[in-house]
């Protein structure tokens, strides 16, 4: 049967290639979308973790994805946080979206950020000093082709790039807190506070105290926040991922259905021959389903190759992106595609098995 399936697939190479590419597109869509969302979230989580804080405090309306909220809080909160037992330092940060040349989050920081994070690792230049100074991380510098000494326009304001720092500390672009507050009309406001405890073991104690003082705020331990940053646990994002997977499955299912349907129609006489040889209905069903599965297998391999090619292309165009292609999701996408292929081929297989042998033999 294996030879028959192989020869059937090779008999119509264009149709087979289209089928393989469609399944490949399905697999790529799943792997790539999940990889992109997981990659961005995981990379964001790593950067938040890289700040070095133990706790963060946000307004109650803030979502899991920190960038989704820039709701300001009074900066005086910092003073009350600093008074709590076991709190070593508190860094207020004002977040501002920049959607020019790609979506990114800009951090407005002051010197306390260094106290919490332990300071930046400078690859070039120096730290923020003047009101118009700007720091970029190495990836942002590469993607935006920015160097120390250049002027960079952001939020309709000219900034002096004074340093390039190693990536991994919250954002890719840092500007003085006071200037960003002025530009965004959020004087004496902050979007979040990073809190560093005197010892990591005191994190739970500090959180308990904070909840008493700030009952209406969102308080998260950084390690909990990192574990929350997955595409399946972020509200809305998991719906988006599910929708994209469903769309991909629909594409694959319909293509397989159409491919196998036309195959069965075209091979009506062959089905009659097989029946005259004594092939029973399960044999005919198996032949169609195996052919569909073989087509799908080729599509899965093509999909994996397409996923890596798409990732390479995207990373070349957008170096700051993070796309995480994992074996787990390759297997999941393959399984989803295979189930879709079998489902899509089920009706044509059933139709072929039910075909009257005499009618099939006289089919032209």
């Amino acid at each position: 049967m294996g030879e028959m399936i192989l020869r059937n697939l090779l008999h119509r190479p264009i149709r087979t290639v289209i089928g393989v590419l469609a399944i490949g597109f399905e697999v790529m869509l799943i792997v790539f979308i999940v990889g992109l969302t997981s990659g961005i979230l995981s990379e964001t989580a790593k950067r938040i973790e890289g700040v070095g804080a133990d706790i963060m405090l946000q307004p109650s309306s803030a979502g899991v994805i920190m960038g989704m909220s820039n709701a300001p809080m009074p900066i005086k909160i910092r003073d009350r946080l600093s008074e709590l037992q076991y709190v070593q330092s508190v860094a207020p940060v004002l977040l501002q979206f920049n959607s020019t040349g790609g979506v990114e989050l800009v951090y407005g920081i002051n010197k306390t950020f260094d106290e919490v994070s332990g300071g930046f690792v400078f690859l070039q230049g120096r730290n923020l000093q003047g009101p118009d100074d700007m720091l970029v991380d190495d990836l942002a510098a590469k993607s935006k082709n920015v160097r120390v000494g250049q002027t960079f326009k952001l939020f309709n304001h000219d900034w002096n790039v004074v340093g390039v720092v190693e990536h991994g500390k919250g954002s890719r672009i840092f500007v003085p807190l006071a200037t960003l507050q002025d530009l965004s009309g959020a004087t004496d406001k902050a979007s979040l506070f990073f809190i560093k405890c005197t010892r990591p073991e005191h994190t739970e104690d500090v959180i308990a105290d904070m909840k008493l003082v700030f009952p209406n705020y969102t308080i998260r331990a950084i390690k909990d926040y990192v574990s929350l940053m997955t595409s399946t646990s972020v509200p809305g994002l998991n719906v988006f991922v599910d929708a994209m997977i469903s769309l991909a499955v629909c594409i694959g299912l319909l293509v397989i259905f159409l491919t196998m349907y036309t195959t069965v129609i075209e091979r009506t006489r062959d089905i009659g021959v097989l029946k005259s040889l004594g092939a029973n209905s399960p044999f005919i069903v198996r032949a169609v389903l195996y052919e569909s599965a073989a087509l799908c297998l080729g599509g899965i391999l093509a999909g994996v190759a397409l996923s890596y090619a798409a990732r390479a292309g995207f990373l070349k165009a957008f170096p700051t992106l993070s796309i995480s292609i994992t074996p787990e999701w390759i297997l999941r996408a393959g399984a989803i595609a295979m189930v879709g292929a079998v489902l899509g081929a089920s009706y044509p297989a059933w139709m072929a098995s039910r075909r009257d042998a005499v009618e099939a033999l006289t089919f032209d």
Partner: protein
Amino acid sequence: MAIAATIPNAQLTEAHSVRGRELVRKSVEPILKTENLWKLYRAGKVEVPALRGVNFSVQPGESVAVMGPSGCGKSTLLYVIGGLASASRGTVLVDGNDLAAMSDAERTKLRRSKIGFVFQRFNLLPTMTAKGNIAIAQYIHGDGFDPHRFDVVTKLLGLEGRLES
């Protein structure tokens, strides 16, 4: 027109086998026997009879030719006695098995083990080689690929040089 009208039953029920020059009459159970065999096709609301009460029998080893004008029901008769189509009425006994009383699956099983077809059109699987066409039949029979039997059959048919075509 039904096949019974064109083939006298008397001619078909006689069993003969040829051994050398001697014609021997045998009194064994027929390998194939039909009794009052009917096959009706439906064209819309009208039933068109293709076979009307066909009665004949074939003894083991006997060769029988069915002759008649186009449309008289020769192919239908062969489809029914070959188990590819079901009879509308009557009985078809193949080696003692009543095809008319069998389910489609049972007829398929019988067809696989006891009946072979040589079609007017070759009806080979076009995507496969000659070797593949023979091998798939072996596969369907459930015997797997038997290289020895394959060699015997291909030599018998003189296909040794054309297996990959």
